[in-house]
Structures are given as C-alpha cells and as structure tokens.
C-alpha cells in the first residue's frame, strides 16, 4: 500500500485521503479548494463553499478545515495561501457567521503577516501569504468597508440570479 501510494499523483492521493480519513463532502470541497495544486481555487469552488456557510453544520465543518489549512506548515504554504483566498471570498459572499468567527479569531490571520517560507530554489514564496494576511486583517478591522463590500456583493448576486430567473 505504502509503495503504491508513492506512485499516485498528489490529486489521486488527496482523493484517497478524503476517503480513508472519512472527510465529509463539505470538508472534501474545502480540501480540494485549498490543495497543493499550483492553480485555483476556482470561482465555482469558492462560491459553493461560501453558500454552504449559510448552513450551520456545514459552517462548522468549513471553519474546522480552514483552521487546519491556515495553521499548516511552511512546506504547505499553498494550503495557507488558498485558505486565505477562500476566506476572503467567504467574508464577502458567505454568511455573517464567517465574519463573526474570524473577528473573534483575528489573531490567526494577523500572525500570518510575518509568514516565511523559502522554497528549494531559494525563493521566498511566503510573500503571497503575508500580503493576503495583511489585506484580510485590514478588511476585518474596517467595519464600514466590510459592510459596504458585503452589500455590493450581495446586490450583484441578486441581480445575476434575477437575470437568470
């Protein structure tokens, strides 16, 4: 088994882990959106997660998984960066509970402002994490801006749904 796992691609490995570790569908969605793949998360993925935060049990599962990703080690800097990306999206389009939860736990984000990771090529890839952590910290501390950005996002979504209907 261990031998064969080494031959799996990271994506296939993640699928296997989702299965063997018994992650729920919601948790799997967050894990996929915040994986080590060098692309994404996609808008569709983020939108789906943001909508799920309106359901209380999904909300808890999403926060749990985001917390895990945000506190991951340097080698997995993409987990951290993408978790911040997903979080940023959810703060705009997700339920109010996301805002409350992360205002409560702001220090998790704030302390990522000095995140460092130098990869094998000697490149400091932590820069993206630091910038994103700064942006989100500023947003969470600016009640007025957060309100207006959430409002305009909501209005845009209503318009688009209206057009579709």
């Amino acid at each position, binding site marked *: 088994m261990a031998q064969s796992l080494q031959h799996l691609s990271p994506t296939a490995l993640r699928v296997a882990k989702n299965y063997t570790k018994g992650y729920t569908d919601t948790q799997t969605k967050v894990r996929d959106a915040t994986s080590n793949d060098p692309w994404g998360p996609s808008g569709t993925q983020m939108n789906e997660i943001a909508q799920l935060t309106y359901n209380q049990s999904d909300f808890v599962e999403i926060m749990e998984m985001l917390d895990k990703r945000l506190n991951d080690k340097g080698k997995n800097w993409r987990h951290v960066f993408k978790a911040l990306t997903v979080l940023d999206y959810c703060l705009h389009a997700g339920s109010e509970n996301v805002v409350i939860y992360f205002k409560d736990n702001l220090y998790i984000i704030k*302390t990522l402002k000095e995140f460092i990771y130098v990869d094998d090529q000697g490149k400091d890839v932590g820069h993206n994490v630091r910038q994103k952590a700064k942006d989100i910290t500023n947003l969470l501390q600016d009640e007025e801006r957060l309100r207006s950005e959430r409002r305009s996002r909501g209005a845009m979504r209503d318009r688009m749904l209206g057009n579709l209907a």
Partner: protein
Amino acid sequence: QPTRPVDKDKTETELTNNIKKATSPEETAPKQKHVRKCIVYTWDYHSSLSVWNGLRTQPILADEVQTFKALILVHKLLQEGHPVTLKEALAQTGWLETCGRTVGGDGAKGYGSLIRAYTSFLLAKLRFHRHHPEFNGLFEYEEYISLKNIDDPNEGYETISDLMALQDQIDSFQKLIFSHFRGANNNECRISALVPLVKESFGIYKFITSMLRAMHRRTGDAMDVLLPLRERYNTQHYNLRRFYYECSNLKYLTGLINVPKLGQEPPNLLDSGGDAPD
C-alpha cells in the same frame, strides 16, 4: 474556551517544543512559525503563564544567541499576544533582569551589550504599560485614547512625554544593533530584532502625532506650553526617518514588513485638518 477547534493537552506539549525551537542556538532569526504558536496560544487560552514557564525552565540563558532570541520572542509576545500578556509580564521582570546579567562584557559572539540594552528596553516598555494600561502592545492607533487624554492636558502632556521617552530608547537601541553588524552577512539574528522595533516605533509615532494635533486644537491660545513637545517631536521625526531609511536597505527586513517612509519634514501639528500618517 476558544471557538477554534483545539486540543489543550496537545497544545501544551507542542508549546514546550515551540519555545525550544524559537530559542535554538543557531544564529538566525527566531523561527516565526514557532513564535506564532506562542502568540496564538495566549489568545486561545487568555494566558501567557505557560510561555513564561517554558522560558524560565529551559536552558536558554547559558548561550548568548539563545538569550537574545528569547528576548525577541518576548518582545513579539508582548506586542501581539493577548492583552493579559502585558499584565502577566510584570511578574517576570526578575527573569528579564537575570537575562541582562548573564553575559559578561560583549560575549564571544558580540551579543552581550545587545542583550543588556534589549532587557532595559523591555523593562521600560513594561513600566510604560503599567502606567498606561489603555495602550496595547503595538500602540495601534485608536482615536478614543487620544481624545480621552486631551480632556486633561496635564495627563496628556505626561503621556506624550512618556511615549517620547520610550521612542528615544528604541532609537538608541536600534543604533546599537546597527553598530554591532558583522561583515556583510550573518546578521539575520540581529536584523530580526529590528522587525518589532520598526513596528513599535511607528505605532508610537502615529500616536504621538495624533495626540499632539488634538492637544493643539484643544489648547488654542496657550499653544506655547506645547513648544517643548513640538521641538522634541521634530527631533524624533528626523531620527525615525533615518532609522527607517537604514532599514530600507536591509533586504531581509523589507521582504518581511513594509518599512514606513516618512516625509522629509515633520508634519505640521497645527494643521488641524491633517490625519495621522498611514
């Protein structure tokens, strides 16, 4: 107690390890991931006692690099930890004083005087916070505090003087750090101590600026009373400008934080329309 999914026993065990690794004997910056865990711990459990305990019981003081890294850790903890950290730190001044006594002379690697200067700066910082509990560890700008103190000009005057004394101490400490750079490389450990100093000095600068402006508005005709503060403010502006300029040449530091850029001339404190600098 925390709303995050956490496991207290596991965190406590890990904390011991985080402290050990943050204060390892390697002459590098204290690893931020370990410093971060200590900071996050104080927020999760609203207590810093386990961190102080770890610092006191681990064999850190036998080595000058480890001692210096421990002081950087303490400084960051005071700045960014839960507010209770500042209060609990008051019971740790004995340990800090011991840190200052461990290395005789300049030490084999030249950290002796840096350790003594860092210790006395941290003790001064703690004294300030004891007298002015309304400030947080990073002096983050909150309008209401500046408004509160200008209602009583005497109190405001004293607060600003105290802030300026702390600012002067940061200035002489940073100069000492720069003067202890060795050659072109391997200064990372020393440079990493500048990171919290840049943040703290800028927090203080912003606060003084907004408080002085508010006091000028309030005192009106009696403005001459504030002349000594204005003169001292201007001197500090030039010192700080030079400090940030020198920091802006350190690649390690500019990659990590935005080093503020101050204007050539100090802002006009009588210009009531002006905002605090960003």
